[in-house]
Structures are given as structure tokens and as C-alpha cells.
């Protein structure tokens, strides 16, 4: 009798153990069912090719280096100390006019770097390229402390981020200039007397560049799009003598808006 009780207890226990064990297994993800609608097979005939942007930052028809003296269209001499800007939301304009986004690609451009890889894209003819100068709103408000060190959106040294208001500086253009009416300022320690800085940022100053009439083809060899950024156009209707400081807000907001309008005109494909 005792034996029978133990046996039945044992069987019941085993059953419970098995059931509980099985339940654990049931939590495993179930295989995804293939939908009834036919799936377009992967077209192995579509070839891809590596695409990159080479970016030449120019002023007065010369590379925008940190040693030359440049002149704005209104005749103000200046020297560059820093020039960095973000490019994001890059889209290739396909032959049919539709856009092919290069996803999650952020470029932090500085004159010391020339080539910026964009990854593999389908070979074929393209009408052109579009991109934003700055950082899109979603990334601009995301947690900037989470990126690995090498990511362009990670904190940089020197910083290109407003840590007191959580946002990227889209374009940081700094230097020194000659603000004398006669353009007779004398360089001291290789610098003009007056500093200038343009810190362009905030969502509403994210400018869009449309180069969709600059056709190019991607073929059998890696393709490099030669992009040129011309600082002469940055100064259109901006008098460097007087309009030489903006943090994009407060009294500097109108100047930043002017710069936002000029930024798209800086870019062209060569």
C-alpha cells in the first residue's frame, strides 16, 4: 500500500517536473511563419559597389587651411582656426526620382579629413545626392553618452556639443579677422585682433542640401563623389566685420538664420 502511494506520488512529481520544464521551453521564440503572399526573391543580379564622399573645403579657390589668409566678398581678411560640421540624412536620388537613404550614417567633417566612406550601394545611374548639414532631430535629442568613442556622434575633443542644453553644434566655424575699415590690422602671433565664431545648431537650423541635378554613376569600381564646400558662399550677405559671433540663440539667432540660409549654397559636386 505504502509502496503504491510512493509510486503514484513519484509519477505525479515526474509529471509536474516535466510540465514545468516544458513550460520553460515554450517560452522560447516560436518560429516565424512564412506568410502566404509570395516573397520577392532576393535579386542576385543587383550588384553593389562601395561609395564614398570626398569633401574639399575651399575658400577663395584654395583649400581652406588654417595658415592662409582669406578674404570675404566684402573684402574682410580672416584666418580659420576651426571648421567642423556634421552631415546626416544622406540620400541618393535614383534615376526614377526616388530616394535611397544611407541609413544611420553621420559624418563629422573637418578639413584634415578628405574621404568619408558611405558603404555599399546598388550600381547604376543616380540623379544626385541630398543631405542635411547638422544632425537630425531624433539623434540631436538622443542620449549622446551612449556612443562608442569612435562614433561621430560621441563626445568629441574639443567638444562640438552643447552639454548645458543637450544638442549638437551642427557647424562650428571659428577664426580671427581684420575688422579695421582700412584692412590694416597687423597679425600678432599669426592672428588678427578680432576673434569670430559661428556655432550653428538647434533643430530649426538643420539645413538641407539638394544636389539632385548632379548626376553620377556607380559602376564596377568603387565610386567617390567629389563634394566641394565653398566658404565664400557662407559669407553671402554676412559682413564678417560686424556679424562675427553667434551661438545660434538670443541676439545671435538672426545671424545663425542667415548662416543656415547660406550653408546649402556652399556645396557642389565637382
Amino acid at each position: 500500500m505504502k509502496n503504491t502511494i510512493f509510486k503514484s506520488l513519484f509519477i505525479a512529481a515526474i509529471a509536474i517536473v516535466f510540465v514545468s520544464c516544458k513550460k520553460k521551453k515554450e517560452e522560447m521564440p516560436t518560429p516565424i511563419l512564412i506568410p502566404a503572399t509570395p516573397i520577392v526573391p532576393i535579386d542576385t543580379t543587383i550588384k553593389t559597389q562601395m561609395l564614398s564622399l570626398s569633401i574639399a573645403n575651399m575658400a577663395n579657390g584654395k583649400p581652406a587651411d588654417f595658415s592662409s589668409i582669406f578674404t570675404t566678398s566684402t573684402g574682410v581678411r580672416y584666418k580659420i582656426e576651426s571648421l567642423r560640421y556634421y552631415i546626416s540624412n544622406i540620400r541618393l536620388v535614383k534615376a526614377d526620382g526616388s530616394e535611397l537613404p544611407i541609413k544611420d550614417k553621420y559624418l563629422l567633417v573637418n578639413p584634415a579629413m578628405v574621404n568619408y566612406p558611405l558603404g555599399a550601394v546598388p550600381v547604376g545611374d543616380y540623379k544626385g545626392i541630398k543631405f542635411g548639414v547638422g544632425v537630425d532631430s531624433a539623434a540631436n535629442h538622443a542620449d549622446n553618452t551612449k556612443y562608442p568613442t569612435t562614433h561621430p556622434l560621441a563626445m568629441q575633443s574639443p567638444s562640438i556639443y552643447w552639454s548645458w542644453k543637450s544638442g549638437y553644434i551642427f557647424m562650428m566655424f571659428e577664426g580671427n579677422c581684420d575688422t579695421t575699415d582700412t584692412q590694416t590690422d597687423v597679425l600678432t602671433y599669426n592672428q588678427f585682433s578680432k576673434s569670430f565664431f559661428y556655432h550653428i545648431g538647434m533643430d530649426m537650423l538643420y539645413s538641407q542640401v539638394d544636389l539632385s541635378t548632379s548626376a553620377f554613376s556607380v559602376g564596377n569600381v568603387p565610386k567617390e563623389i567629389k563634394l566641394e564646400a565653398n566658404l565664400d558662399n557662407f559669407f553671402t550677405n554676412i559682413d564678417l566685420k560686424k556679424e562675427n559671433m553667434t551661438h545660434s540663440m538670443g541676439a545671435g539667432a538672426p545671424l545663425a538664420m542667415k548662416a543656415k540660409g547660406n550653408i546649402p549654397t556652399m556645396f557642389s559636386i565637382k
Partner: protein
Amino acid sequence: MFKQNIYWLLLIALLCSCRREIEKSEVEKPMQTGNEPMIYAVPKGMPYPEVPNDNLPTKNRIALGKQLFFDPILSRDSTISCGSCHLENNFFQDNMRLSAGIQQRLGQRNTPSIVNIAYIQEFFWDGGVASLDQQILAPIENPLEMDFDIVKVVERLQRNPVYVDKFKQAYDKEPSVYTLTRAISCFERSLIGGKSRYDRFLQNKDTSALTASELHGEQLFFNEKGDCFHCHTGFNFTDNSFRNNGIYEVYADSGRAHITGFSLDVGRFRVPSLRNVAKTAPYMHDGSFASLEQVIDHYNSGGKKHPNKSSLLRPLGLSEQDKQDLINFLGSLSDD
């Protein structure tokens, strides 16, 4: 008898095998000693704060964050730490109108207490930063505070074997912007206060915890006559809004407008918590009110004219006794 024992043994073996399998799947690698998830100590009456899943508190993390908080390694010339202005034995503030950064550079706004910072969603007097982790970057990079560069702070920490080891023990990672900010925020969230006489009064329904004057002050605080409660509401005595309370006709510091660019936000600042308020003078974003008497007089007057001034501000007509009772009540909000 023997048979029965066999059954029992088999049963135990089965149960064990099952459990072992579960454990294996849940714990991938051995846990660092001192890194078992724990919970923050929260006083009765206070809710458990929101804690990000990637930064659950552990002994190692809080200890590392605390060490970093008090280490001047974060400042350019290694002279000041977070704890230089957020004093440990003084409700994590410094009772200064404005605080000095490196080389005695004077800041622009009053240092707030960071007790109960775990309950705040938008940081600084103007709410310019949306997470505690990101907030940590600002004082490090502010030229008037630590005037340093977060990337260089991380490099310093990576060169320090003691810190490298502690980061490993806390996050199983190297010092980085990510782990540095997580460690400090993990420590800061542990600074939860809520053990004042007023809490005891509320928790224990013990009217003897407050004096008659304080009880009258409490009534004024929570009724339309004193009308403090519209903004200073809830367990942390703030609605976490940003308001213009009419302390100036012209604001030298535009406050929230500095972040948003909207003229309607000029002169708006965070409604601060009133916990420990009697111990954390001076008051307002610029520390311009030295005493609670001045603060109450200001609200009693209805404030100065400003287009953005909160419509809640109006002359209150409080008597001298009312004012004293309100101040006495505010004194009961201090943690022991």
C-alpha cells in the same frame, strides 16, 4: 524500503537537473562580487524612483560613482569635484549665492541641492538637459565650473589603474563617457531624502510632531490664502514645471528661454523642491533672496510686473503671524 529511497533519489535528481538548466541560461558569466543588483533605500511615503535598466544600482557602482563625485580628477586643474559645491554634509549644496569653479571663477546660477535628484526628469534651472547621465557632462565642460573636456577626463581615468579596476568591477567595462556618467548617476540616485518632521506627521498621523504655528503654516501652504501648493506639490514639493515668479521686471538671465528661444519662456525657471528648504538658503535661480523671510515677503507682495509672470502670483495679504507660521512650517520639511 530500498525501492522508496530510489524513487526519492530519482526525484531529487530530476528536480536538480531542471534547476541547473535554468540557472545556466540566466547567468552567463560569474557576477563580480559586490555587483549584485540591489534596491535604493527609499523612505516611507516616497515612491521608488525610475531607474534605467542599464544602470541598476549595485554596491560597486554606487561606490565608484561616489568616489568620482568627490574626486577633483574631473576638473581641468584637478582642484574641484562635484562635491566642492554639492557638499555631502550639507544637503548636497553649499549655501552660497553663486559657487566658484576652478580658479575661483564664479558661476551664474545658485547651486541646487541634489537630494532627490532621482525624481527629476529635466535638469538645471532651465531644464536644458533631459537625462541625469547627460547632465553630468555639463559641469565638467562648463568654463566657469570644471572647464574640462569629457574625452580627456576619460583618458585620465583610463590611465589610472585603480579606476580601471573599479570600472571593471562595477560595469565590466573600461572607463568611458558611458560608464563615467552611469557611475555618477547611479550614486546620485541613491541620495534620497524624506525623513523630516513633516513626514513623520504625515506617516504617523502624529499631530504632536508639528507645533500649532507649523500646523497653521501647513494650512496656509495648502489653501488658497498662502497658495504655495499649486506649484510646490506632491511628495517632493514641486510640480516640476518652469515658471516666472516675478522677481524681476527685466531678467539678466533669460532662464528657460535660453534653451527654447521662445520669448514666452523669458524669466521662467524650475520650481524647486522645498525639502530641506530652511537649510538651503539662499533662494531663487541667482541666490538673490538670502532668507525665507524675503521669499515669503516676495510672494506676499505678488511679485514684480512681467508679461510671463505666473497668473498664480498676486498679493496674498498675509499677516506677520501668517508669514512666521509659513516659515515655521517650511522648517518642518528638513531631514534630520
